[in-house]
Structures are given as C-alpha cells and as structure tokens.
C-alpha cells in the first residue's frame, strides 16, 4: 500500500485535473507541484505559464516565487505581466488556473485578503496577487485548500476573487471571461459545482473520511449527490516524482 501525506494526496489529486495540451497558470506551492507532476506523467505537453512572464516553462527545480529564475531556463518566452495576465489570461487563453483560499463560500467565491471586518481587520492576508484575475478569466479554476470548518463559510469576510458570485447568470452580468471554479480540492474531499445552482457539491471523499465528516466541516449546506465515490489514491510513481521535483521538501515538508 502506498503511504502518503495530506499534501501529497492533495497534489496528486489536483494534478489529475490538468489535461494534456492545456495552458496552465502554475504559480508556486502545491498548484505548481500539481502542474509539474501532471507534466511529468499524463500531460507532457501542458504549457506552464507563470504570471511574472515565463511561458512554456520547464523548471528543473521547484521555484519559490512566480518570478523565480528557476522558471527561466528552457522556457520559450520570458516577458512580463501585461503579456501573461493581459494578453494570455484576459484574452481567454488560459485553460486552468489554481488558487488557494483562506475562506470560500457555497458559490466558490474566495477570500485571500482579510479576516475580520474591512474597517478593522483582524488579519491581513496576502491579497489578490493575480488571484482575482485568474478567477475572473481562466476557463477553469481549481481551488486547493486545507480542510478547516472555519474556511467553508456562509459569508466571506471579504470577497477577493469571483467564484460563481450569486449563482447562475451573475458571472455573465459582469462580463467575466472565464467559467469560474470547477473543482475544490481539500485534504478531506473533492467538491465540484451543481450545474443548475452553481453551489458546491460533494464529488469524491478521500479514503479514511465519510460523507458526514465533510458535512460536519463546512458552515453551509453542501449538495450531496447519490453517488459519492472514494477519491483515487496517489500512486507511488506520483509520490516519487513529487519528491524529485521538491527534493528539499520546501512544499512537501521535510517529513516527506
């Protein structure tokens, strides 16, 4: 039996959502590992793009920053933000974007800016970065986050990046380019969105968890379909490749 950590599970799971020949915004951290893992396995021809300006990147070591020189050598073009976030992303040419989230609501709207009230915030989080842009304009958005009940809220403290906003029709109202979040991956389950209501729906539950665990760990009502399969586990090959990509355990942790 394959042994894996929560993070390894998340990364392997996310990598399966990347399809060959897609243009992917990699960023850093788990999304980047997921994209690189996909490229090393089932999707060798993905075009890995970093918003700082690297296009079709093939880093041999895992970058720590979207602007890290590790993204440079072997990439096909090295330009800037107007190119990546403007011409490519806003131009509708990104298939998959990834975001993390500190809070998410039932429509997949995302907060990465403040915890607490806007006028007197308790915690300043990083903010949007390219997140709002990616959530607005990528064809599909994959959200990756650790599962914590306080993160799955009925109402966000601050909406940084658009999910499906107030539901059907509301992205169109604001003429957003992309289709919004496609899947939310946590260390407990995968969730997608009900096509009619655009509300979060349970998709698969990771081994070791029950449906009830998920229901207990979100603060809104989650749609549960009749059939909720168990999530596919990572293969040993996936885990080995991950560690080859992040030999110092910067993202995967020293414990491996």
């Amino acid at each position, binding site marked *: 039996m394959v042994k894996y950590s929560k993070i390894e599970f998340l990364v392997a799971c996310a990598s399966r959502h990347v399809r060959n020949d897609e243009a992917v915004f990699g960023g850093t951290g788990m999304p980047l590992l997921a994209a690189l893992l996909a490229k090393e396995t089932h999707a060798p021809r993905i075009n890995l793009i970093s918003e700082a300006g690297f296009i079709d990147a093939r880093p041999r070591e895992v970058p720590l920053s979207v602007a890290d020189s*590790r993204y440079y050598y072997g990439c096909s073009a090295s330009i800037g933000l*107007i190119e990546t976030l403007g011409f490519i992303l806003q131009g509708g040419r990104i298939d998959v974007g990834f975001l993390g989230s500190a809070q998410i609501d039932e429509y997949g709207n995302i907060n990465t800016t403040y915890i607490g009230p806007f006028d007197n915030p308790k*915690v300043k989080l990083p903010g949007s970065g390219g997140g*709002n*842009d990616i959530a607005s304009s990528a064809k599909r958005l994959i959200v990756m986050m650790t599962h914590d009940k306080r993160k799955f809220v009925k109402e966000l403290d601050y909406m940084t990046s658009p999910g499906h906003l107030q539901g059907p029709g509301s992205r169109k109202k604001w003429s957003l380019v992309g289709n919004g979040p496609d899947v939310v991956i946590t260390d407990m389950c995968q969730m997608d969105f009900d096509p009619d209501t655009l509300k979060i729906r349970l998709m698969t539950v990771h081994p070791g968890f029950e449906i009830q665990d998920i229901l207990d760990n979100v603060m809104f009502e989650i749609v549960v379909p009749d059939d909720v399969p168990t999530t596919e586990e990572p293969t040993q090959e996936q885990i080995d490749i991950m560690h080859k990509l992040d030999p110092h355990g910067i993202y995967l942790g020293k414990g491996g």
Partner: protein
Amino acid sequence: MVPDGSELFWGGFGYQRAPIAFAHELVRQNKRRLNIQTCGSEVDLEIMCGAGVADKFEIAFTAIEALGLSNNARRRVTEGKLQIEDYSNLAMAMRFLGGALNVPFMPIRSLMGTDMVKHARFKGDKKLKVIDCPFTNEKICLVPSVQPDFSIVHVQRVDQQGNAQIDGIVGEDVEGSRCGKKLIVLAEELIDGDEIRKRPDQTKIPALYVDRIVILPFIAHPMQCHDYYDYDLEHLQMFHKLTRAEEMWQEYLDNYILGVDDHWGYLEKIGWENLHKLRARKPWGY
C-alpha cells in the same frame, strides 16, 4: 532626493530584481509617509512598512510567497499604521501602463463582482469605476492610471546615458519605469554605450526616461537578480522568522539596516564569501 510623502512606483516582481538596497537607504534616511505602488513586492514592502517609512501601499499582494505571510505588513495594518488599497496584479500593471501612456485610466475585466469594487480605503471613489461600455454595453472596470513622483527600478545593466537592459522577466517594470515623473535606475553593472548600441533590441529602458543612475552590486540581496545571483534562502528564512514579533524585527532593523553606514556596510555584514556563493551559474541564471 525623495521627499517625505512621495508616491513611488516600486519595481521588481516576487523574488526577482527587488530594489532592497534602495529600501534600506530610505530607512537610513528616515523617510516618512511614502506611498508605495507595485504589484507584488515582498521583502522590500516588509522593510518599508516595518520601519515606518511607508504608511500607504497601493498593491495587489504582500507575502513572502513560498515562505508565508508578510508579518510586518500584517502587524502594521492591525495597528492602523498602514493602509493598503487592494487591487489585483493585472489591475496594478494596467494602472502603470495607463500612467506610462499618459491617459487617465485603463479598462480591465477583473475585479468586477467582488469586494475589490465595493470597498476602498484612502482612494475613496477614485479607486476604480465600473461603467457600461459605450461600444458594447457590457460592464467594464476602469482603473485609474498612476503617475507617481518616482519610479524605482532595478536592472542588470545600464550605460552612462541610462540605457538599461533587463534579463529574464520584466514583470511590470517596462510600464512602471515609464509612468513615474522621475525614474531612478539601480543597476548591478555599468556597461559601455557601444555595447547597448550593438544590441538595441535588448534595451528595455531607453535613456530618455532616466533621471538618476545608481550602480551597486547585490542590490536585491536577499532576493534574486537573474543572471547575477540567486536568493539567499537562509537569510530570507531568517528575515521571515524575525518579522514574526516586533522586538525581533527591531533587532533585524538595527542590525542589518540602521546599524550599517550604507549598502557596502550591509554587504560586509552579509559577508562576501556568502555573497559569492550566490552568484548565478550559466546557463541557469541563478
């Protein structure tokens, strides 16, 4: 040269070409009330808000990316000593593009539908406007251009006239270098004008935009400068750890910034042996 209360475009992106040495100098000169405008600077923003040099940011992002949250900014916001006007990276890049083009705004398709539109701090109703497009009738977001008092940009090489080359990604520095009323170029290396004129395709900032040139090595340390040196991960992790509590941060500030006379003193403190270990290897550029 930079008066208190100035607005500054701040160059570099993420770990790349951060004008750290300039941030240090602003701290040593005890500047106050600066407004820093950039997409996503990191350690430099931490230094400037941590030392009380800047009390306003117009930015999209503040964190040390892979290493975690920006602790100084977080504390200063909670203390009410720092106001952050939040945009996205594209929004900021377009604001610099608009400033460079000398037009008052730029249209974008981001931000709409979110609290980025609903909430503003010091920019009030000048933060942005959502309008109906007069051509297509769809909603479109207008972000106001910025033309700050100064643009601060760190590049690899510059000639005596000010023609500057950037290796690797440019981030938002092409637009940023052209949007400021004055442009200060910080470079790792001085090269001859003939070298520039042999490869004019490579000039990212022509001299006519440039007001001042500063030549120093390791301007970005502990961050990275493509083709010149890698980030100093150990120092970076130490920096990040020390920002977690105010006393520890003050210790770093005294030790590495206020406690040295200038950038050479800082480099001395870091140690030349350490610095040389960071030098970039070909063909990787880091």
